[in-house]
């Protein structure tokens, strides 16, 4: 083998080994088993980031479907988990809208709303205008169709007003 090939192989091995060490120090696995797990998640994350850069990023439709089924069955914790897995890069407006909506439906109460869930919903809704400013949901089951309406619901739900003591509130419906 020629010396220049040995040198090239040496540079390649050094680069690969060096990257592996950088990965270990960045991922900080606590055991040998964790090295595999973290390596797998790092590879997946790199692949999705590569897809975003290449413009070929798509959500995982199967997981989105599972999330939608859980959402319709009022199992909002499971729904959010599936939606987040379906869209790990948080770049799909529809999925992000469902995530925010799930906070609304879970936190909504006939007498009072769950403030912590409403705040979380408001936070998750912040991403939406950046992804799709004019987003309108096409789901006929959702009574709130846009991010602005949903934000208004969250903000109104978090405020304490005289209207909160109106007994007619007991007959209102969840959207």
């Amino acid at each position: 083998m020629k010396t220049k090939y040995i040198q090239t192989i040496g540079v390649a091995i050094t680069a690969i080994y060096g990257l592996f060490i950088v990965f270990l120090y960045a991922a900080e696995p606590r055991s040998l088993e964790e090295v595999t797990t973290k390596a797998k998640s790092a590879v997946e994350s790199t692949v999705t980031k590569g897809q975003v850069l290449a413009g070929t990023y798509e959500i995982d439709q199967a997981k989105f479907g599972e999330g939608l089924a859980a959402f319709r069955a009022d199992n909002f914790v499971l729904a959010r988990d599936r939606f987040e897995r379906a869209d790990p890069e948080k770049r799909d407006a529809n999925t992000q809208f469902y995530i925010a909506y799930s906070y609304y439906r879970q936190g909504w109460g006939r007498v009072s709303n769950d403030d912590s869930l409403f705040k979380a919903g408001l936070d998750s809704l912040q991403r939406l205008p950046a992804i799709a400013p004019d987003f309108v949901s096409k789901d006929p089951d959702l009574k709130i169709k846009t991010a602005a309406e949903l934000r208004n619901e969250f903000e109104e739900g978090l405020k304490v007003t005289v209207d909160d003591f109106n007994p007619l509130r007991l007959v209102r419906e969840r959207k």
Partner: protein
Amino acid sequence: MSELTKTKADLEDIESVDDSPVMDGSDMSSAAAETNSPRLLKLQDGSEQARERSRAVRLYLFLPIIFLTSALLGGLRLAAPDGAFVFVTPALLCLIFAVFMFALFIRGGMISIAGWFSDGAPTVQNVASGAVLLTAYAATAQVFNSLIPETGLPFWVVAFCFAWSLWNNLFADLDNKKLLRSMIALFAFAFAAKYIVLAGITAPAGEGGWLRSLIENPAKETMTWLLDLPRYTAGTGYIQFFCLALYFAGLYILPRSAR
């Protein structure tokens, strides 16, 4: 038969060289040229190529692996009591000390920059040489990371001692061997201070809470608290011993020049 004749002829050629007084490479080449023996030239070329290959393998494959393994182990600790991996990234000070060490290597003649990089050399060789020196630098930084205590007063005391020694050495007239010996002594002392003395006064990780630990081990617990000593398992010392051993093995193999 013809093969046998050929081998015989080769042997005769070699014997004729063996009988002659000891000659260096250039003498041999000129002798070969003078005797006009293409076989001897071929044999000589073959052995030189083999030597060049083995040197390249040692330099560009073996050495980076040694240094990178040392760099990997330098920041690895095993947390007590479960032995979980803890990867400690080097402090900025370790990187600065590594630069000082490299300055020492160059001043002491352990590394000749002109011998590693050259305008006349192929790009691949320059890149490969850079990679080798980069791994040596990473290993040096990680060895400091290994030897300097992580936090608290011991960190500053040991760092100050290192800074003092390195600064002193920068202005001393050290040759290659003396520098290596001085470094081994310095690092061995720091190793003993951290992994024998400080580890010896660190209280073991108790599972019954701090009050129980304080009752069972008052002196060690107080020292651990006062000096802010991290609790690692004994395995950490062994790992760092191998890290140091690998590092010095790498330095021993590291030639002054890549040529």
